[in-house]
């Protein structure tokens, strides 16, 4: 899997905890469009087989390739949060950003003909609605560093203390 080397926070999914219920997609699409439609979700569950399931949203890469790729300069990265902002006046739905994104985190809305990407619900006080709703706490808002710390701790707990019950 390609790795984001970002210092920024992003919505991360733990595949061990993800049950594939897609509730994150319902909630995301409702938050962004007022309708329930997984096609319009900015976080997407990926089910490769019966048990390999996870969810993927924008990883807020540093020097984000989507921003660099956009021929209209419609994409801009917030220097503090890493969140990608799309200028609806400039975006012409050419989809170069989609090609540039290794995570498949961008989509074009066929109705509005605009690129859409996770903005971590930055305008909402409660933060990302998908994280709030996730029934198994598989989703979290985290940075690559924090994620690595968590992995290390889990590894030690698992290997040294024994498997979780």
């Amino acid at each position, binding site marked *: 899997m390609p790795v984001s080397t970002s210092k920024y926070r992003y919505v991360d999914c733990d595949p*061990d905890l993800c*049950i*594939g*219920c*897609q*509730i994150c997609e*319902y*909630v995301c*699409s*409702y938050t962004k*469009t*007022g*309708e*329930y*439609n*997984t*096609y*319009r979700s900015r976080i997407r569950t990926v*089910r490769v087989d*019966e*048990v390999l*399931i996870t969810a993927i949203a924008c990883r807020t890469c540093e020097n984000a390739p989507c921003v660099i790729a956009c021929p209209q300069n419609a994409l801009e990265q917030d220097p503090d949060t890493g969140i990608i902002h799309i200028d609806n006046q400039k975006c012409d739905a050419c989809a170069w950003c989609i090609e540039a994104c290794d995570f498949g985190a961008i989509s074009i809305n*066929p109705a509005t003909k605009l690129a859409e990407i996770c903005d971590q619900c930055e305008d909402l006080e409660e933060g990302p609605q998908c994280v709030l*709703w996730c*029934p*198994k706490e598989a989703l979290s808002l985290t940075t690559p560093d924090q994620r690595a710390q968590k992995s290390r701790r889990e590894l030690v707990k698992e290997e040294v203390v024994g498997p979780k019950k």
Partner: protein
Amino acid sequence: MFGYYGKILHIDLTERKHWVEEKPEDWYKIWIGGVSMASRLCWENITPGCDPYSPENPVCIANGIFAGTPVPVGGKYGLASKSPMTNFIGDSLSGSWFSVALKRTGWDGVVIHGASDEWVNIFIDDERVEFRDATKLLGLDTFKTEEAIREQLADDQVRSATIGPSGEHMVRFANVTNDGRQAGRTGHGAIWGSKKLKAVSVRGTQGIKVADPDTLNKLSFNITKEAQGPHTSKYRILGTSTNVLNMNKLGLLPTRNYQEGVFEDAEKVSGEFLHEHHKVKTIACAQCPIACEQMSIAKKGPFTGAMTGIEYECLFANGPNLGINDMNAVIRLIEVADRSGMDAITMGLTISWAMETFEKGIFTREDFKSEKHPDGLDLRFGNGEAAVAVAEMIRDREGIGQILSEGTRMASLIIDDQRNTETWKWTMQAKGLETAGYDGRGLKTFALGSAVGVRGPCHNRTAAYDPDIQGEVDRFKVDDRRGELAKDTEEYAAVYDTLPLCKFIRRCFTGKADRAGAWPTIAQLVNATTGWNLQYEDIDLIGERAHAMKKAFNIREGWKRADDDLPYRWKHDPMTKGPSAGHVVTDEELEYMKDLYYIAKGWTPDGMIPKQKLQDLGMPDVAEAIGV
């Protein structure tokens, strides 16, 4: 209209055409969705008295009211046809993405008429309908069929309900699978096979709007969080397989074709053992915050690597019921059923009948010869490898699999006719459908619920074991409360099967699962979705109507009081071991309880429905057709 589109899609496989039927909002208020709407569509579209394998028997799909919304466990749809196993209503439910994707296509239900000459995959692409050649999908198992269709259409959001090899071969108890979930019972896969219908695929891109999203979101959020607590811990951690030890303790765990109710090796095939040694991961249906599907893998022996989801019914049928104490073989047996698309309960009970028939000397090794096993099989109870080989013969209709693939009722008729025997006495079925994993000899209210079941004896359509197991009544005796209890529990279940909501959520509304605990919240959920104003009594009516519709279907197909019966063994052969030893349900007890039940339902002593009753339920055309 919120929650519905007001449109049913009709597809004719013979003529390869489709048309739209518009339905008024009042029709939806009566039939709601799930098994109720599917059964109603069956009533409206079937030719009464038809052969279930004929083109006149339609496939009726009815979506759920909550599919595609965040209402927990509301992603389910109903499927109904005339069952080839019972010749009565075959109504099943399945969960997950298929129903959600179907919801977004803009159709509330789909009725598939006729039969195709060539194998076909129906693709419902929003409002468009395409008949796709399914030749290349033939022989693929259910999981692979879905993947192959996604690859053909290059869209991983396409969802399909499919049949596997068992359905293609018209194994009578073949089922329909979507997303690893099954519309499991009553033989839908065989009907699809008779129509050369390999799969129905859907791609829905429309957003779903509800009447009051703020209320619906708030309610759903709270239920989602509540579903992580003690009310669902049984399902989340061990799944329903935890029932193995519970039932064993009560002497109700069907063992060796229901000859006994205690299994000496129950520990080795328990939910606890499964969790400790075989569990890979727990997964969920679409829209479900509980997650009960315990994905389990075989780790030793010839079946190493076999993996599927395990729950109690499949586990009892293919474990203790076959006398098998090796979980690896049990997992493989259930995998054969799931991948080839057949009902794992009926498969297990068919093999157990064959095992008993073998042990009693009527079947011999010779009978179980196949290409893989030229010397035949030693099909004694406990022989896991032989059981797997027979399951594969059923799947492929190879050798004696030809006969066994008809289920126990028809298989015993064939064998008894050929060999002048009485093996039918060991068939664990009523109305042609095999029984569930709770022994009726030690659960008399459940025995009644099983006998009067409209689709045959089924643990999902009646919860009549609850008052028995909870100690509300003496489970070994009958008394005058049983009719009322059987009515209440079946209509309670019918509410969940109609919305549909998975019953595992039933304690998460208020902590109490009874009507008073659940109905007010369910009414709020329906009202926030549709903008209606349903009250407590209206939720009760949903269940009563759904059940009456299915019963009316059966009456039109020639149902008689004598059809409400139990397996011979429950009536005549007491178990010899354990806490439920020595008990049977006598004919007198059964007929007495049936009388009570028909009275409780407001029916005639013959079990017919009075015209007035059907009119009061808002079913005037049904009253006209079958009311007395």
